[in-house]
């Protein structure tokens, strides 16, 4: 019996790998399993080689593995690029009639995708369903009812014939795998009841949904992978929830639009990736200077420049921490899984308005494009807290936007209040918001803007800790690396090496870290992150008592995995 299986679905862009992995993931989710899907794709519309990697497990899973138990190769290039990633006892499913490249090796199973698809539904496009069936056969899992349900939802708009053809194709795929091999990776049974409250959602949707549920009213953005899908989520919901969304001419416009809307009293957001964020930076300091709430989502991908556009990295932390000229306060948050995406977004909007600062939500391609199984019972949300926002102000033309008597965060009046005007200024300004040349005011205003950080700290969450109460090894991670690093800590504990994971989603400002484990046995703190230099390790060493004896870093465009981290510990 297998408790944890990894299947790679590989082929040229446009061949439908994602539809196979979606059908499998959703079927197993509904049957009570935990699933996780990551997309390893090239930057092109057709051709090349993309792989959709799905992991099915009886335990919660938020990361991928380096190797495949099963590889479905939809074309020759898929075999060439991925055959070596198949485990020694694994299987490679391919169409021996169409993909004749080299001598088949042990564990290669030919399933005539095209022929069976044509027979089942009369349409070559149904090879995806044949392949799905072949995987189901190897897993020996009785999920056909769930699979039929998913296919019905996917294709019912195209007519009953398409639905029945695809179901026939799945069954043909199951039958094509010989009985001796069938059920080779028999999945340990689970209870269907486990699927109650479970959803399958990708990181982008979790963030978009989090923003909408936080009361987002204005979104401006310029398309850039891997952030575009957040914008598309909001676009699809804009009418239903009264959100204004506009595709800006560039990222400079996008952030200035969002700041204009933020000044005017609505919750506003823009999302981009590192290169687009480079263009936004003067806007970040505008938000800092004018004390305008704005949420900026940055979905990281490997840089510099155009970099590795469709791959993943956590390489823009330093950029986000230091972006913008001058000193001012900011907040940086980074969700761990799709389950906490909504909470992170709720917090981002609340902190932006409460402290009148730019708030960054840092994710990455791995986070945005991966589908997570989420237990809704574990999803936490934060109610709307708009801080000191005012719709009206007593008196006549006496409101001061940057009133110093009110502390570092002045009451924020929404423009349009009767007999009051609101001046916001990118120049150094007076309490009223007019341009000033006063050195004395300058110092007071800088202290106000930058000094907010000391107040924000009180709202920042401590890192979470999982693992041994008396660890020898403490792994430290941030944002989307959670799943892989948690799994690495679990592996260490399972092999009798006491370990724990200290994970951060509230990145900046950092509170004084309170460790919830016995430190006496700790031999080493190790920071694992998805970049070249260890940007988060640097941040922690500069600002906390944590010191790292090693950094485990990955910057090949792939996400961290438990094997990679454990390998790094041994090396």
């Amino acid at each position, binding site marked *: 019996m297998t408790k944890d299986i990894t299947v790679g679905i590989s082929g040229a862009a446009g061949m439908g790998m994602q539809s196979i992995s979606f059908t499998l993931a959703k079927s197993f989710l509904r049957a009570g399993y935990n699933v996780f899907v990551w997309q390893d794709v090239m930057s092109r519309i057709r051709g090349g080689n993309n792989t959709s990697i799905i992991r099915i497990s009886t335990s919660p899973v938020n990361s991928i593995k380096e190797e495949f138990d099963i590889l479905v190769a939809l074309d020759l290039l898929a075999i060439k690029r991925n055959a070596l990633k198949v485990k020694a006892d694994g299987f490679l499913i391919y169409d021996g009639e169409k993909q004749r490249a080299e001598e088949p090796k042990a564990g290669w199973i030919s399933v005539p995708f095209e022929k069976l698809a044509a027979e089942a539904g009369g349409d070559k496009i149904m090879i995806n369903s044949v392949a799905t069936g072949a995987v189901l056969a190897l897993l020996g899992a009785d999920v056909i009812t769930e699979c039929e349900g998913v296919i019905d939802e996917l294709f019912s708009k195209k007519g009953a014939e398409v639905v029945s053809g695809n179901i026939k194709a799945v069954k043909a795929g199951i039958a094509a795998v010989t009985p001796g091999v069938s059920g080779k990776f028999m999945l340990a049974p689970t209870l269907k009841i486990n699927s109650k409250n*479970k*959803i*399958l*959602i990708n990181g982008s*949707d979790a963030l978009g*949904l989090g923003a909408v*549920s936080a*009361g*987002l*009213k*204005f979104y*401006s953005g310029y398309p850039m992978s891997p952030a575009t899908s957040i914008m598309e989520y909001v676009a699809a919901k*804009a009418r239903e*929830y*009264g959100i*204004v969304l*506009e595709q*800006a*001419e*560039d990222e*400079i*416009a*996008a952030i*200035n*639009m*969002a*700041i*204009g*809307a933020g*000044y*005017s*009293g*609505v919750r*506003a957001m823009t999302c981009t990736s590192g290169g687009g964020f480079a263009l936004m930076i*003067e*806007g970040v300091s*505008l938000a800092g200077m004018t004390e305008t709430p704005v949420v900026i989502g940055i979905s990281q991908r490997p840089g510099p420049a155009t970099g590795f556009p469709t791959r993943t990295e956590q390489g823009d932390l330093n950029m986000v921490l230091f972006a913008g000229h001058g000193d001012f306060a900011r907040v940086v948050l980074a969700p761990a899984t799709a389950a906490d995406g*909504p909470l992170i977004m709720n917090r981002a909007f609340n902190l932006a308005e409460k402290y009148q600062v730019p708030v960054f939500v840092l994710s990455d391609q791995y986070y945005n494009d991966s589908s997570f199984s*989420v237990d*809704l019972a574990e*999803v936490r*949300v934060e109610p*709307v807290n*708009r801080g000191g926002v005012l719709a009206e102000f007593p008196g006549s*033309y006496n409101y001061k936007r940057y009133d110093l008597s009110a502390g570092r965060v002045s009451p924020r009046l929404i*423009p*349009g*209040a*009767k*007999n009051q*005007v*609101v*001046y*916001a*200024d*990118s*120049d150094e300004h007076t309490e009223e*918001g*007019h*341009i000033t040349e006063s050195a004395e005011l300058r110092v007071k205003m800088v202290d106000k803007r930058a000094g907010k950080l000391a107040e924000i700290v009180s709202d920042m969450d401590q890192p979470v800790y999982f693992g041994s109460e008396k660890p020898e090894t403490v792994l430290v991670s941030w944002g989307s690396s959670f799943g892989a690093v948690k799994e690495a800590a679990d592996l260490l504990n399972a092999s009798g090496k006491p370990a724990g994971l200290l994970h951060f989603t509230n990145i900046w400002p950092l509170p004084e870290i309170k460790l919830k484990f016995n430190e006496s046995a700790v031999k080493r703190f190790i920071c694992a992150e998805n970049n070249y230099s260890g940007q988060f390790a640097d941040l922690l060493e500069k600002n906390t008592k944590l010191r790292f004896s090693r950094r485990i870093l990955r910057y090949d465009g792939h996400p961290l995995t438990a094997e990679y981290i454990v390998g790094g510990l041994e090396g």
Partner: protein
Amino acid sequence: MVLASAYNSTDDNAWCPGCGNFGVLQALKQALVSLNLEPWQVIMVSGIGQAAKIPHYLKVNCFNGLHGRTMPAAFGVKMANHKMTVIAAGGDGDAYAEGGNHFVHAMRRNPDITYLVHDNQIYGLTKGQASPTTGLGAITGTTPFGSVDIPESPLAVAVAMDCSFVARGFAGDIEHLSKIISAAVKHRGFSLVDILQPCVTFNKINTREWYKERVYNLDEEADFDPSDRVKAFSKALEWGDRIPTGIIYRHERQVFEDSVFESGAGSLSRQPLVPPNCLDLMRKYA
């Protein structure tokens, strides 16, 4: 009834004595009074430059943002407060150089915003460098051997972009300019008012007298029809011995707000924030 004095600002004015901006300020004040708008009903958005300081010298809501970024900030402001009057202001460098891309796309969107561009054909606040409208051969701090780049014709660009209201005013004719600004604010859609504004300190070519000798009022041309785009385009290009002022092009087309707000809907910023339930949104992924 709103009095002009209601718009008086307490802020110190930083413009040079005799600056053309004073004429623009006066004309704008008169226009706001004639439109019977209270100061709190108006939001001005500006960039950076001497012209962009104008909201400080009025009493109005103001977002004084970054150089060149006036249009996007104004768009965000308008979307949150579409029931308010939004007027943007800045100079020729702000609007046509740093903000050139935003200017073009603002016209495509056609939000109900009036854009006053104080066009003095020079960079003033940075002390005398060439701008996108500086004349060919003009000697400035950055063009010591004469400007080589041909000047942009912002009005022709606007007509080409099918901007829904295109006008030119002259800071030396406050009465006419005030009428143009009133008409621009009243017009539903994006309105460009390019204002010839003498810079008394750095532009010794395009002086008040230079403009006075050349400008004429389009109202005096009986057969001119501002709804005719082709004629408007040739008027927009007219520059030299005679320079037309007045409304060059005007037509109705869909205003951006009409594509997102139901008619009669109040401003987004004035509505209670009642977001949808997060778990309800998530359940759709079961």
